[in-house]
């Protein structure tokens, strides 16, 4: 029994490592990602039957691919009108399994990239894209995805079935998009990876351990993508952003699970290895000399904090400049509010307050508790305590977070 479980754990590991490559290689031939995924699952079932008896083969990935291809041929033979495809796949199965060499790696790389672009195709809703990506690229089981997203197994299973059907119905080709199509398609891929990361990042104490694991999953996917598409600055930027954010995971909550603000975090608890990796990824993005995209600016902002061993060392002038760049790429009053905070840190509270007052009338900021909260903070620093008190009280009435409300009321009381 012990030996069986150990083989099963090895099969699990092999599956997570190989499934994306198996599905990708198969999809290249069948041109049907849904079929490719099903046949890969069949190959997994075969492995679960045979490997505990016969042992894990020397090259398990090749074994899975060959088995899956044979199943695909059987499957397609049953639908007789696919004769030409059968010939193509048949020829390939006859050929000896090639050893890994440069050319083969490139081919696998292209297939994997095609698979990522297909799983993240914009014809699919975000939930479907996330589920397909974790299933086909991450090698996660349906129940693992369900646990990570706090939904039922059947919900995830349905999402995947519908997504595969939607891809087939839309006739989405299995390829890497080119030309003007590339940018929006890449944006869709990056969005999915960052969504997965943030889902993991929002996990709280007591959550299923699969939830925080999503951060690691997204990081691995991002790093894989950075190797597959090394000339895309936004890919490196997203990796940089995730590495730096992940570096703070041990410092961002207090002993009671309460959130600790960035400037108040114990930087000794930051993971400096990940910060170093993030800064390196950012350098790779910068070396490509492309116009700054939204992930670049966010990563560069995160890096300003990451470079500072102490909160006082933060380069606020650079942060203010980066928020200005971000405001140009995606203008929003909330970005302006952040810029106001950066300006106040760099040049004093009066500079920040001038900008806050400029944007205070913005419709999007009405009812947003951080506007009076920031304004109160700046007024307080300027010694205008009476006005500050009113702002803190207003902010307290707007926030829905109990802990934050207490904090704001304390600040209001301190103004007297």
């Amino acid at each position, binding site marked *: 029994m012990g030996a069986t479980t150990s083989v099963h754990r090895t099969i699990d590991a092999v599956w997570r490592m190989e499934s994306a490559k198996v599905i990708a290689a198969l999809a290249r031939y069948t041109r049907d990602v849904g079929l490719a995924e099903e046949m890969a699952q069949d190959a997994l079932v075969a492995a679960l039957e045979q490997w505990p008896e016969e042992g894990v083969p020397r090259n398990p990935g090749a074994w899975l691919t060959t088995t899956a291809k044979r199943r695909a041929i059987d499957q397609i033979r049953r639908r007789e009108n696919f004769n030409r495809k059968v010939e193509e796949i048949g020829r390939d199965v006859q050929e000896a399994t090639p050893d890994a060499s440069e050319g083969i790696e490139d081919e696998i790389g292209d297939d994997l990239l095609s698979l990522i672009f297909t799983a993240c195709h914009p014809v699919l809703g975000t939930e479907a894209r996330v589920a397909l990506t974790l299933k086909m690229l991450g090698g996660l089981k349906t129940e693992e995805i369900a646990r990570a997203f706090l939904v039922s197994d059947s919900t995830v299973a349905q999402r995947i079935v519908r997504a595969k059907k939607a891809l087939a119905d839309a006739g989405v080709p299995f390829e890497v998009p080119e030309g003007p199509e590339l940018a929006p398609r890449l944006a869709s891929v990056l969005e999915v990876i960052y969504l997965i990361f943030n889902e993991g990042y929002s996990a709280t104490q007591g959550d299923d351990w699969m939830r925080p694991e999503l951060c690691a999953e997204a990081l691995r996917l991002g790093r894989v993508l950075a*190797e597959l598409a090394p000339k895309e600055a936004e890919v490196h930027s997203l990796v940089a952003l995730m590495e730096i954010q992940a570096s703070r995971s041990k410092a961002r909550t207090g002993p009671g699970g309460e959130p600790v603000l960035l400037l108040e975090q114990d930087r000794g608890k930051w993971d400096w*290895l990940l910060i170093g*990796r993030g800064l390196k990824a950012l350098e790779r993005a910068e070396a490509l000399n492309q116009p700054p995209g939204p992930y670049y600016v966010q990563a560069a902002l995160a890096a300003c904090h990451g470079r500072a061993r102490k909160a006082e060392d933060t380069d606020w002038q650079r942060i203010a400049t980066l928020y200005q760049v971000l405001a140009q790429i995606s203008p929003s009053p909330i970005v302006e509010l952040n810029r106001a905070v950066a300006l106040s840190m760099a040049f004093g509270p009066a500079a920040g307050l001038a900008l806050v007052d400029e944007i205070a009338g913005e419709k999007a900021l009405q009812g947003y508790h951080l506007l009076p909260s920031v304004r109160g903070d700046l007024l307080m620093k300027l010694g205008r305590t009476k006005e500050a008190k009113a702002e803190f009280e207003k902010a307290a009435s707007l926030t829905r977070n109990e802990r934050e409300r207490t904090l704001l009321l304390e600040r209001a009381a301190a103004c007297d």
Partner: protein
Amino acid sequence: MRFMVFVRSPLPLAALHKDALVRAGVLLDVGDLVPAAFGVSGYWLIDVRTKEEAVERVRRIPLPACVVEIRQVAVV
């Protein structure tokens, strides 16, 4: 979970054989060490999902004859 993989060999091998780990998105750090007779010649620090995955990933690396030790990094 993180694993530190020590490679023991007369000549450094870790940096030379890092590519597959990089492509898989699991390599956090790699280093070769100054040679010492029969000592550790280099290391990989990897982030993988299970111990079995660490073993499988390392097993696939086409290393010449050498001894490899895989140790899980303690979580503080």
